């Protein structure tokens, strides 16, 4: 009885068009402001240089701020949402009115997010992912937390329970020690390079300040620095490394604070975050592909990371379609995750395929051809560098050849490759969207083909296998797709 009343209560809660919390104005303002800045940044750059423009800049900025504020208020006013006939209906639009109807059936996933300013006011952001097509993502940026949770429950058809009420322990929970490890095993080199790049970019406007500091340094010191600059190289490298590690650690903590993964009611639930708390929920049938990655450092620390791929548009990698990364998994957890997302018990791998050596020969040729530019240097280095490169390439290709493996089971296909950076992709035959056999005149003569199994989240590419094996694999995949009535989306 109580449940019924609650259900009724829920359905009436969103039956009338309603607006977001007033503070969504702030969100609209920031969003529009950012778009504005990004599209007119050359004008702002000009502002910094031209005296005449600078005279008017105060007035111009005031005008822009006023305009943006008015736009944000109107946008907030015009943005309404409600639930009607099992569909989320959204009216929005500043100048052009837009009505969006998203059947609840078609909703891929509903995520909640909470950044620091939303946390202060007890608000929550809600993001609705719909299948495949680009730009079909909807964001409701400011809702009272209880309303946001209820709306999420309705849209994702889960039972309204809070995480603490749940009895099942999380599959993965990252504690501080793990977080530390994840931070330590990231790509410090890249992080350091990015941060130094950022520092340099931001330094430019403050060049005057920097030069005034360098002017203040006494001439004696200057002479000393000039004479002993070689000593600063190791110091610089140390600093570079330290910045890299620090940035990696900070990044890991901010991103994966209180990170946990749960599997319940046929959905994968991922939550965490420091400044911006997030909670993603993906129904298991909607997981299209599974990708394991590990670097040398990560393997030394004994873990890998998993990326969960959902259906997405292929050109919109990164923005839009959510590719979720779960870091810091040991092999037992990986297996548990695989079992939960795909089949348990794991199907036996019946056939292991490897690309023909011609594939590796081609690879090797391509890699060593990169040595030619080095030869142009001439002299001692012109001989040494190409030789080192060729040896390294041969070694790398040889190892890659060893590691590459396609595992075919009755229901799944997995691809393992990479030597230092190892990757594994796992897809289920019945979720394939299309299958193709590709070959070219060089491969055809050798009786070889590539097979491409396309999932809704990208392809599994199996290179250079014998024609008849390729055809078998293709026919098997097609048979699984065409016979299957299992949910794939």
């Amino acid at each position, binding site marked *: 009885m109580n449940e019924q009343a609650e259900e009724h209560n829920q359905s009436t809660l969103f039956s009338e068009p309603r607006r977001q919390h007033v503070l969504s104005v702030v969100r609209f303002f920031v969003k529009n402001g950012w778009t504005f800045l990004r599209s007119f940044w050359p004008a702002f750059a000009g502002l910094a240089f031209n005296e005449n423009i600078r005279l008017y800049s105060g007035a111009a900025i005031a005008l822009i701020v006023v305009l943006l504020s008015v736009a944000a208020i109107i946008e907030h006013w015009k943005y309404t949402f409600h639930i009607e006939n099992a569909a989320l209906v959204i009216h929005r639009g500043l100048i052009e009115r837009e009505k969006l109807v998203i059947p609840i059936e078609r909703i891929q996933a509903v995520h909640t997010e909470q950044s620091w300013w939303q946390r202060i006011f007890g608000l929550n952001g809600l993001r609705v992912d719909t*299948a*495949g097509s*680009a730009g079909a993502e909807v964001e409701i940026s400011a809702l009272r937390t209880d309303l946001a949770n209820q709306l999420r429950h309705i849209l994702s058809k889960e039972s309204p329970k809070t995480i603490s009420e749940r009895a099942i322990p999380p599959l993965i929970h990252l504690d501080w020690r793990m977080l530390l490890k994840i931070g330590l095993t990231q790509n410090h080199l890249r992080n350091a390079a990015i941060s130094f790049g950022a520092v340099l970019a931001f330094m430019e406007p403050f060049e005057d300040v920097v030069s005034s500091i360098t002017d203040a340094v006494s001439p004696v010191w200057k002479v000393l620095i000039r004479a002993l600059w070689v000593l600063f190289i190791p110091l610089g490298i140390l600093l570079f490394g330290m910045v890299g590690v620090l940035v990696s650690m900070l990044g890991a903590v901010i991103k994966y604070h209180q990170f946990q993964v749960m599997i319940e009611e046929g959905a994968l639930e991922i939550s965490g975050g420091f400044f911006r708390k997030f909670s993603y929920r993906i129904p298991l049938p909607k997981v*299209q592909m599974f990708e394991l990655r590990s670097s040398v450092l990560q393997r030394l620390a004994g873990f890998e990371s998993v990326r969960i791929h959902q*259906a*997405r*548009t*292929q*050109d*919109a990698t990164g923005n839009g379609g959510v590719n979720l990364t779960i870091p810091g998994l040991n092999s037992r957890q990986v297996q548990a995750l695989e079992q939960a997302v795909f089949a348990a018990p794991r*199907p*036996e791998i*019946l*056939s*292991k*395929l490897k690309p023909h050596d011609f594939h590796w020969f081609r690879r090797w040729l391509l890699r060593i051809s990169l040595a030619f530019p080095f030869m142009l240097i001439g002299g001692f280095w012109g001989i040494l560098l190409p030789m080192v490169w060729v040896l390294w390439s041969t070694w790398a290709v040889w190892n890659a050849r060893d590691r590459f493996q396609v595992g*075919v089971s*009755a*229901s799944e296909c997995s691809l393992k490759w990479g030597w230092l950076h190892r990757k594994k992709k796992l897809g289920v035959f019945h979720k*394939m*969207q*299309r*299958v*193709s*056999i*590709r*070959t*070219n*005149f060089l491969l*055809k003569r050798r009786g070889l083909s590539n097979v491409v199994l*396309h*999932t*809704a*989240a*990208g392809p599994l590419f199996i290179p250079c296998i*014998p024609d*008849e*094996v390729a*055809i*078998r*694999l*293709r*026919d*098997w995949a*097609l*048979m699984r*797709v*065409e*016979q299957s009535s299992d949910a794939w*989306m």
Partner: protein
Amino acid sequence: MQEDEKTRPACYLALKSAPVNPFENYAVPLDGLPEIESDSFEGMPERYRTMRWSVFGLVVFVATAVVVGPVVWWAVNEEDPVPGIFWILLAAIVLGLCVWAIEEWKGFSIRGVLVRDHDLTFRSGYWVFEELTVPFNRIQHSEISQGPLSRWFQVCTLKLYTAGSSGANLRVPGMDVEQAKRLRAMLDERAGRGA
């Protein structure tokens, strides 16, 4: 029996010994796994060949008018030698056109469509061959498009879209218009049945 199996490809053996899962009791005779037979493909109409050759002819004409002609004219009539870069450009163009011509000449007969009970396969390409199959139960929507040139030649492009990619996933250019419409009607009917 043992020896017979050794000669067969590894994948075949693997699939033959697939374990039977009690909940997915497929009664699939693996020897009779439906195959895509290469001789059952239906070729494109002859007018489409004409259309492709006329496009090729047009490009040859333009290339001749813009690059090949002037370079040859220079070499014959002017005192100064033609700069080397032009010869390289000329060679690249001639080579490119040759590759294209061979593609058209040898590749047209490869182009073809095969419609089976549950899927559609399109194959094409001499230099780079592709045989792409889209199962009907994965098609999101379909489209028939026709530009001015294809309207003249009464052919059209059938586009099939599946999930997870922005462009058309299967493009069949040069289809007979009537045929494409019939095919689409069949697809719609299947979609209606939820097949």
